[in-house]
């Protein structure tokens, strides 16, 4: 047992960075060095590149790295989820093969969970995996797959048994995206961007060693991935911020971010851009209308209280207190903020809210807010699902009676489109 304190960890990581960090490293070269030192993923097990630091002290390491401008391991997007999932559920061989290359950023990933016929009801997946000869053969369709067009690997949830109840017939695989049986098509959204893809499998293949955990344990593995996804849902603003510093490694990091962050460039608009409200109200003179003032005030109140609620959750976490209800509400609250912001932006813009592109306020930025906000209350768990989660897990209310859990999945009513 080590007696690690905030001060001792800070001193140790600082000394290591002083001795080792230089912006003249190549990105992968530096990340390998960082991974070898244990400071890349300090809360991970010692056997797998970590130092077994408590989560609360991980922040100290991050602060010290930021202080000197040291680049971190690849944390952006789905790579973090893949690594975190395999760390828990992978075999040693899978960890050997994938963890390091995910942390260095050499391998990129996508998440093959959602399907046209199963959105909120993820466990209703109908993409099939059948064992034929010496390999798994995959047929079906996934959707809402961010970065599928440049991913090396996919985290796949597929049905391996149709006679068991739905959650028990799923298995989790690592699928090679570079193969003839995998076709990726971009999916155009109502805001004109195409950040996501549809992925079609026609006799795509997965070798047996790329099954994660056991047959029929796919739901448990997917739950681990989703848990990490939710935890990171409010972090999109933080990761992917490139440093403007000079040095070879920063150039490489900027290039990496340009690719990884491309699908997310409209995400700030999806969140409502409350930061633009006061400036816009003053510029348009709408700040003198008492009705508009009230609506702006309500929005700013909501936005501020949302921020403080997140800070309360973080403060409790830092103090090691059990998580209070304030920690589970962020996703739902951010939908409220975004919707309110879109409404007030409309109120401020008036007739101009009918326009888009260069004819619209701020060269189309306001229009992009208005047509991007509807995504926030759907992606990553709809508001309705969030309310179910809050009422069941935080408030302890009973689940609705279900009809799909106690019978073979093949007998459960399904969508006609799939």
């Amino acid at each position, binding site marked *: 047992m080590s007696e690690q304190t905030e001060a001792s960890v800070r001193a140790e990581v600082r000394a290591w960075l002083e001795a080792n960090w230089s912006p003249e490293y190549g990105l992968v070269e530096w990340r390998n060095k960082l991974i070898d030192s244990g400071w890349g993923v300090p809360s991970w097990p010692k056997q797998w590149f970590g130092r077994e630091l408590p989560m609360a002290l991980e922040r100290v390491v991050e602060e010290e790295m930021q202080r000197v401008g040291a680049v971190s391991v690849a944390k952006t997007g789905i790579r973090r989820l893949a690594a975190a999932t395999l760390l828990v559920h992978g075999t040693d061989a899978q960890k050997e093969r994938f963890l390091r290359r995910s942390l260095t950023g050499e391998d990129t990933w996508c998440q093959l969970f959602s399907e046209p016929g199963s959105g909120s009801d993820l466990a209703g997946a109908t993409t099939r995996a059948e064992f034929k000869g010496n390999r798994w053969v995959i047929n079906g369709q996934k959707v809402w797959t961010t970065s599928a067009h440049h991913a090396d690997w996919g985290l796949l949830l597929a049905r391996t048994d149709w006679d068991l109840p739905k959650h028990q017939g799923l298995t989790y695989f690592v699928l090679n995206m570079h193969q003839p049986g995998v076709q990726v098509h971009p999916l155009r959204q109502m805001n004109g961007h195409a950040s996501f893809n549809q992925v079609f499998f026609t006799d795509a293949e997965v070798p047996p060693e790329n099954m994660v955990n056991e047959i029929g344990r796919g739901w448990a593995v997917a739950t681990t991935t989703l848990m990490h996804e939710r935890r990171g849902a409010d972090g999109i603003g933080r990761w992917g911020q490139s440093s403007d510093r000079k040095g070879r490694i920063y150039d490489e990091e900027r290039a990496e971010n340009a690719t990884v962050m491309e699908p997310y460039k409209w995400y700030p608009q999806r969140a409502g851009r409350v930061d633009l409200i006061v400036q816009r109200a003053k510029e348009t003179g709408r700040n003198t209308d008492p009705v508009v003032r009230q609506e702006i005030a309500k929005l700013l*109140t909501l936005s501020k*209280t949302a921020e403080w*609620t997140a800070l309360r959750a973080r403060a409790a976490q830092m103090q090691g207190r059990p998580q209070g209800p304030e920690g589970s509400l962020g996703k739902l609250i951010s939908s409220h903020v975004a919707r309110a912001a879109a409404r007030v932006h409309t109120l401020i813009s008036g007739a101009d809210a009918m326009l888009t592109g260069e004819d619209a306020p701020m060269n189309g930025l306001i229009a992009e807010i208005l047509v991007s906000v509807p995504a926030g209350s759907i992606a990553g768990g709809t508001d309705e699902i969030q309310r179910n989660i*809050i009422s069941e897990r935080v408030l302890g*209310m009973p689940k609705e009676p279900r009809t799909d859990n106690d019978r073979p999945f093949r007998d459960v009513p399904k969508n006609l489109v799939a």
Partner: protein
Amino acid sequence: MQFSFTDEQQEFRSVLRRFLDEKSPPTVVRRLMETESGWDRAAWHDLNQQLGLTAVHIPEEYGGQGFGPVELGIVLEEMGRALLCAPYFSSTVLAATAIMHAASPAQKRALLPGIAAGDTIATLAFTEPNGRWDSAGIATTATRDGAAYRLDGTKSFVLDGHTADQIVVLARRPGSSGNDGLSFFTVAGDAPGLSRRALKTMDATRKLALLEFRSVEAELLGEEGAGAEPFARTMQLAAVGLANEMVGGAEKLRESALDYANLRVQFGRSIASFQSMKHKQADMLVDVELAKSAAYAAASAAAENDPELPALASLAKACAAETYMQTAIHTIQIHGGIGFTWDNDTHLWFKRAKSSEVFLGDPTYHRELMMQAWNV
């Protein structure tokens, strides 16, 4: 700004909650609200003897405990939760705060220890029958008469005004207007020329009075004509205090709605298993947690003398008021028919939510103050 409570503050809250659960159950609230005074002197002494709550934010040099707005907020949140019937908001929050901001050191030494001990019940008379919460609404005049002053005018909506021993009055120099010429005064509750009448209040747990001053002799607090700034600061702390009191009540309602939904069976299943109920409860939780964040942030800003306090006090007041009222409406709805009866306790909190929504200025008024403070 501080976003969590210390272990000592948490402990203080839980002691207080146990104490108030025992001393202020709904049966006691119902008994006291039917009386004209609205509170019980023996129980009040009990409260102050055991926990010294009246002293909480008064400086030690004036007989107080020397804690700050955060601890005051905790006390008020718990009192709001228990719907305590006592002259606490009037005496400790309004009157003591006005004295702390307006009076000379000698006057503070004379006035505050009695309030801190709970022996003197004081209140602040500022609003008038016009119902305005800002200084522009003050018409009561203070005319110099030798060393003393004479007050003439009518104060209304005075919290515990008919029972207070001491009344702090906001009045103006004859002929002045707006923020000019305002001063604070003190008057004994039984001063000659002062007539007091309890108003019939919809929220029976919060008593209001009409006070008429006819040439009432009064002592000036602090400097003549310098009352605007102490008044503004008193209103800010009062708004913060009321916001904290309101979130306590809102959380209590939310919990009672949840308890009821879990008990009630319709269509062969607990109504808590219907998504229409679950989603409403989730929304109530979101509202209450957001309002708590506002109330706590404002208390923290007050404790740190943050320049943002004027904006945050109004933000918290408006936010907590809307949440309390909305939570009360949802709670009655979740109870169904029983929630509309006198015997069910929900209406007690509903009415407190309604009086708190308006008291010290409604949400629209406070949102406008917030916008002005932020120079929008």
